């Protein structure tokens, strides 16, 4: 990450903007704490179900709607079919997080390419690409997701696709704007003036400056995508029983929250903690990577 600097510079080594950003991020306690918590949640979701004694779909007729207890490791209690809620919450978390990560990746790829092409090419290409984005903005995307589910049945990958298909719009706009502004910066002009080839300008000046906003907007995308999946599941249009996700668990828990409040409390808590952490990390990244904003 270090870069050679001119001889007149007093410092023996240059400080890369990324190192500055890392220092700034690590100084942000809420963001660092959120990274730790989110990592713990993710680890628990991935490995927890393997370590716990119950399976997420094993029904126990003797333990229907039991409150949380240490006996048998039913720390979150059991649901109305006697299934262990802790394991179900963790397995549901796998689905929610997986959808979040996959859909985000897809939409980041589309958004960056779309925005960068529009920004570089300019002219007619730019206006056509951006009109398409404008048009897609006006579409209520949840309805399209519902339509996809209606047509193809409930398939988790299709849900990912439907969510991703409408989540890349912000990214495309931001990347385009950033590309345009970088293209006209003095340092790019200077680089061009001293004869740096175009590919090196792109690699050394444009892409590193794009990465900042891409990282920021990616971190903003993740909670939104997880939320959309949960909404679909809550409406009964996500994954199907016995597979589960946080939205499904919240929906099931909401139906019986008067009698067994733990059934909504724990899944909703898991989702809220995840969303909170993701938001804090996003804020921390923005503060760290975009010094102008502070």
């Amino acid at each position, binding site marked *: 990450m270090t870069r050679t600097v001119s001889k007149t510079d007093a410092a023996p080594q240059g400080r890369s903007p990324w190192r500055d950003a890392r220092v700034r991020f690590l100084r942000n306690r809420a963001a660092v704490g959120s990274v730790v918590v989110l990592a713990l949640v993710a680890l628990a979701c991935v490995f927890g179900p393997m370590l716990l004694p119950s399976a997420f779909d094993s029904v126990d007729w003797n333990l229907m709607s039991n409150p949380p207890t240490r006996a048998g490791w039913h720390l979150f209690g059991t649901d109305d079919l006697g299934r262990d809620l802790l394991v179900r919450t963790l397995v549901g978390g796998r689905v929610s997080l997986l959808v979040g990560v996959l859909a985000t990746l897809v939409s980041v790829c589309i958004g960056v390419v779309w925005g960068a092409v529009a920004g570089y090419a300019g002219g007619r290409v730019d206006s056509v690409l951006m*009109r398409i984005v*404008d*048009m897609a*903005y*006006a*579409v*209520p995307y*949840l*309805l*399209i997701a*519902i*339509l*996809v*589910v*209606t*047509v*193809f049945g409930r398939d988790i990958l299709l849900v990912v696709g439907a969510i991703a298909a409408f989540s890349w719009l912000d990214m495309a706009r931001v990347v385009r704007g950033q590309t345009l502004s970088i293209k006209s910066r003095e340092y790019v002009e200077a680089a061009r003036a001293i004869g740096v080839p175009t590919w090196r300008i792109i690699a050394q000046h444009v892409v590193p400056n794009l990465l900042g906003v891409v990282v920021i907007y990616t971190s903003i995308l993740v909670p939104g995508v997880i*939320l*959309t999946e*949960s*909404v679909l599941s*809550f*409406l*009964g*249009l996500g994954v199907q029983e016995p597979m589960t996700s946080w*939205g499904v668990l*919240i*929906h099931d*828990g*909401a139906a019986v*929250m*008067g009698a067994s*409040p733990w059934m*909504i409390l724990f899944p*909703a808590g898991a*989702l*809220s903690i995840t*969303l*909170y952490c993701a938001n804090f990390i996003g804020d921390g990244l923005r503060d760290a990577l975009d010094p102008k904003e502070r």
Partner: protein
Amino acid sequence: MWAYVLRRLLVTIPTVLAVVTLCYMLLHLTPGGPFDAEMKVSDAVLANLQAKYHLDQPLWKQYLYYLDSLLHGDLGASFRYADWSVNDLVARALPVSLVIGGTGLVIAVLAGIALGIVAALRQNTVVDYVVMLLANIGSVLPSFVLGPVLVLVFAITLPWLPSGGWDDFAPRYMVLPIALLTLINVAIIGRIMRGSLIEVMSSNFIRTARAKGLPMRVVVLRHALRPALLPVVSVIGPLAISSITSAIVTESWFSLPGLGKLIVNGASDRDYTLVLGLVVLVTVMAVLLNLIVDLAYAWLDPKIRY
């Protein structure tokens, strides 16, 4: 101005057309047709039925027929609800959604503006923090968590209101759904209003107004409010569109017979025409709403003249 309205209207047509085309083609990717029932009708009857509904025509002709009926305001017949056309279903559901969603949005905007003004004028005091904390409850809790919480508090713990259902616009059944939709949006409006008013209050013309001895009320209401409202107006359109999600959740959770409930039921029943019709309808409404908001923005901001 009128040229701008016309140009904006002309842009909305390809948008709607693109959505309709995309959705229509999506529906026709599915295997099976509406008459592939378990009880087979004879081939002759089937052929007649298909001819009646143009199903024996090539896809592009069917599509043109669909566009034609759309232009005549006909969304087709429901696949699942016998004796009901999509139009009938929409006619019954639309008022419910409009009343709930419209009231929720209006209250959210007014309350958000008021809260934002209060918080901005008492910036960094206890009042500011309390107001913003309360307003933020709606934005940190997703609608499908906040809805159950509202029911738990106001319907189960305190048996004041029904936990769901609908009785021909009886206010008792509308309080909680409207409250939910309001809470979801009030924080966003409040935060934007607060930020923009703080910025406006530190500008030169406000200093002039205060320097010539105008009372604070006049400074805020006559001079600061209008420019401070601009960012609020510009988010109303996107906010209304994003509220469609929470409106669907709200109607589904409170069992309200509105468009959201209709589309969720349509999706689980795989009622193609119903879902397609609703998507088209809501898209058109969203696009028109955006247009209205943009025009309001142009009217409010003297810098923008088209």
